[in-house]
């Protein structure tokens, strides 16, 4: 199994969820994060005090999938989340040693 972590632009969340669901990934865990990277942030000004805000709001999606569809899922995410503009984000994949569904105790693929 693989644990896929994708950092995307927030307004792409719904599309991405739809895309992975189509491949059969029913569950995902989402976190609001701050991204630093090539994409430039913005400036804020308060009574003459100017602040450069480097981070940008990003959405972090975490989803565990079976090895068989990992490739496919990564591709789907990239295709859907891509705007072509800088700041689209990253997808990271790590090997998942074990997965358990709390409710039933099912492990491995059954857990997803």
């Amino acid at each position, binding site marked *: 199994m693989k644990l896929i972590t994708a950092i995307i632009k927030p307004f792409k969340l719904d599309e991405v969820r739809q895309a992975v669901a189509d491949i059969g990934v029913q569950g995902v865990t989402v976190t609001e994060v701050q991204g630093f990277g090539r994409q430039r942030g913005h400036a*804020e*000004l*308060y*009574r*003459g*005090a100017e*602040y450069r*805000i480097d981070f940008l709001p990003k959405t972090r999606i975490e989803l565990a999938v079976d090895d068989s569809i990992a490739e496919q899922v990564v591709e789907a995410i990239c295709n859907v989340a891509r705007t072509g503009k800088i700041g689209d984000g990253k997808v990271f994949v790590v090997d998942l040693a074990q997965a358990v569904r709390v409710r039933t105790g099912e492990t491995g693929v059954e857990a997803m």
Partner: protein
Amino acid sequence: MREPLETSRVLTYLWSAVLCALALIAAPMSLAQEASELAPAHAELASAESAASEMTQTGGAAEEAPALDSGDTAWMLTATVLVLFMTIPGLSLFYGGMVRSKNILSVLMQCFAITGLMTVLWTVYGYSLAFDTTGMQAGVLSFNSFVGGLDKAFFAGLTLDSLVGTIPESVFATFQMTFAIITPALIVGAFAERMKFSAMLVFMALWFTICYAPMTHMVWSGDGALMWDWGVLDFAGGTVVHINAGVAGLIAALVLGPRRGYGSLIMAPHNLTLTLVGAAMLWVGWFGFNAGSAVSAGASAGMAMLVTQICTGTAALAWMSSEWLSHGKPSLLGIVSGAIAGLVAITPASGMVGPAGALAIGAVAGVLCFLASTKMKRALGYDDSLDVFGVHAVGGVVGAVLTGVFAFPTLGGVWAPGEGATIAGQVWIQTQSVLFTVVYTGVLSYILLKIVDVVIGLRVTHDQEEEGLDLSLHDERGYNL
């Protein structure tokens, strides 16, 4: 409440120090001669404070005093409510929204505690120090020209029947109490996010006693009072309230030093909606402050309300435009700051100037306060956290000086100048009062802060400042969303 004793001791102790400062400016002005010349001009003056303080003397004498007027009383009851509304919640929110979320409660707490503390101090001796007029005589400089006695301590002599002008003295005393509450509260903005709560309480008790009450007395207590005799025009508190607090704020900011990481860390306002709401409450409450200073519901109050609105709207647009031009974008914090600047500037002028003067004062105040709170503050590098100096002191000076100009009927003013009063002359009187106030409160505030620093320390520890005052001083968290 042990302040009374402590502070009165400090009071006498400090008096020598301040008298030097006084001599400096008071001397040339305090010739009984000049004063008595100006007196008549005053007698005519439609200023309510005049009526007010005159009445406090003759309050009892039924045949002399006008009878109670329910309309005037109705308005003054309302005005009192409005001025209290300015401090809590108004000012608290205005300031609270500008600090970081870890310090929000500390600011609200400071304003609220000041409200309680000043209420008690005003009751115990403040009202007396400010408005007791025993031993005062027009044009004669005496100790009582600077501060009142203790004859009115605990509102002694205030009965159901005692009047001030056409309203019950109880209403006048409460109305003035709300001024005594908001003035120290204004200073909070200068040392926000780093001062010990305990030190804040002690300093405020001292400052109220040494700086606020005497200033009120010198300007508003009537014939025999220092600046009253000079003939200064201060309808609702340009010197007494705004310059007084603004200068004290700057001194406090300098004595405490900047917040940790000031200039490097991001110290953006954590919730500008609170600031907007606070500013809006200050705006609406200010009508009680200015129109209420007419101490009656008549033409003077009406005109004060109109010019207050005009000046405020103009200053808001002026600040907004200045920022738009200099930075490229207008901001909410900017436009609300402009409104406050306008309210501050029109304070001494309301009831004196007309619509034209209000437009002018608003425009000038909006631009100058913008420059002072942005460019100048950056340049000088002091950390007046919420710009008490840039808005209240600068705005107060603009208003105080321009009142001397636009109060004249020839310039649309509604003031009745006395014989031979000239714009140049009045501007000079206004300027002297400003200088006096700056020196007086500047010197004394510095001394008081140093004393408190030595005795109990002004500033929180690094860790407390790091963790935030809400948790470190009050064991509370602002937001649990």
